[in-house]
């Protein structure tokens, strides 16, 4: 937890701030539609019934690797020291997918459908990033 964290941070907006406030408390939150009960990742409308009303509910924090990349090229000074680093899309057990990083694993060991669980990274006082590690 440092104040000189140099990487880009997610922009808090009226639409996504409850998600990031949950992360700060180490809760991975999904939206549960008030209209039909469908559970989804943060989005403005329900993909089933189109309602904009929802509650925030906790996810199990468990899922599987859907796809991933390993970045070798320097696109940003902020990530230069991490090269090569991975970025992954994880499919949560509840269904939604999210973009994240895999930690506590070598890039070469990443496999499709690898089972993972959330691993919190408190990068600043305000922002905690949900990352994922292999289920032990």
């Amino acid at each position, binding site marked *: 937890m440092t104040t000189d964290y140099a*990487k*880009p*941070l*997610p*922009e808090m907006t009226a639409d*996504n701030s409850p998600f990031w406030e949950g992360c700060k408390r180490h809760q991975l939150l999904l939206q549960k539609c008030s209209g039909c009960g469908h559970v989804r*990742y943060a*989005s403005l409308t329900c993909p089933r019934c189109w309602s904009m009303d929802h509650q925030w509910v906790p996810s199990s924090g468990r899922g599987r690797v*859907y*796809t*991933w*990349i*390993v*970045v*070798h*090229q320097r*696109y*940003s000074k*902020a*990530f230069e020291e*991490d090269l*090569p*680093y991975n*970025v992954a*899309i994880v499919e949560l057990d509840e269904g*939604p*997918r*999210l*973009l*994240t*990083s895999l930690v506590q694993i070598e890039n070469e060991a990443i496999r*499709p459908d690898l089972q993972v669980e959330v691993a919190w990274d408190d*990068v600043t006082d305000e*922002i905690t*990033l949900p*990352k994922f590690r292999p289920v032990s």
Partner: protein
Amino acid sequence: MSLKDKYCIVGAATTRFGRVPGVSPLAFTVEAAQLAIRDAGLDREDVDAVLCKYPPTGFHGLWAHKVSEALGIQPTIAATIDQAGATNLGLVQYAMMAIDAGLISTAVCCYGDNPLSGTPGTYGKALGADAAYGFIGVPSGYAMIAQRHMIEYGTTSVQLGAVAISTRAWASKNPNAHKRDPITIEDHQSSRYVVSPLRLLDCCLVSDGGAAIVVTSADRARHLRKPPVYIMGIGQHHVAWDLPRRPNLTTSGAKVSGQTAFRMAGIGPQDVDVCELYDCFTIVPIITLEDYGFCNKGEGGEFVEDGRTGPDGSLPMNTAGGLLSESGMAGMQLIVEAVRQLRGECGDRQVKNAEIALVSGQGGIMHTHATAILRR
């Protein structure tokens, strides 16, 4: 009312490609537009619509209006449209629709940019909030898709490489191509990873340059300088959503877009003599070939593997070198090349008896897609 065979591309032009310092995006756009209008045997007064995609090196409000000013045209319709790499075909479709509605007679669709000599702009931008994870740059997005295609269908890096080799083989016959030195599968396999599973030779060039085409009615086209190229079919489809929310990463807008264009044209993939498929990354033509029905879903890697799309293959593809070898610009050059093939203007790289050409455009991270089928 179908648009089939009622509209033609009557002018087509490219500027110099590659590293061309000292030429602004506006100057490339204007040069290409002038060349295309004159290629048609037309003059400024004959053009009543100016249609543009804004240059990714920097967003400019009312870009088509700036281009109109520089061309000295006060047009009936000026519009800047953003559908990323599908825009240029989207502009063609817009032109056809507007002529069909009796609103305009002749449109110039023009594009130019200088990302190599100028500033890289969009090409290295962060991708949304996902930048917090280092998900930055367009190759990262396509690498996610390539990896998923490998997971689902066993596609290999060597198969990706086949696309790069084929387009370079074509580019070696194109004097204006940005990269002309032939490459081998060893070159591909030993090129460094940019974002694995994509290697350097899997990635779009970054090139300066411009390209433009002119669209008018078939009636008018028959009296112009060059043989008309008829637009038989055109379609769009947009899977539209960002990667994490997109239900399926390995089927693109090419599927519905292609069905629309083929249905309008009344032909099928087997009738296509030459195709110019948007190839910003090697995975893209592979998925596009599958979605268009040139092979089954998942078999695109095999389809390209044996050189079928190269100069001696059964399906000549990206005959000027595509985005991978001719010019990294966002697709207008593919339409120009299709027109030149159908006119028989292509010299060493001319496909014999090319009667029907297919062109694709797509962009974002496969968010957008458009398809056109042309005939001579």
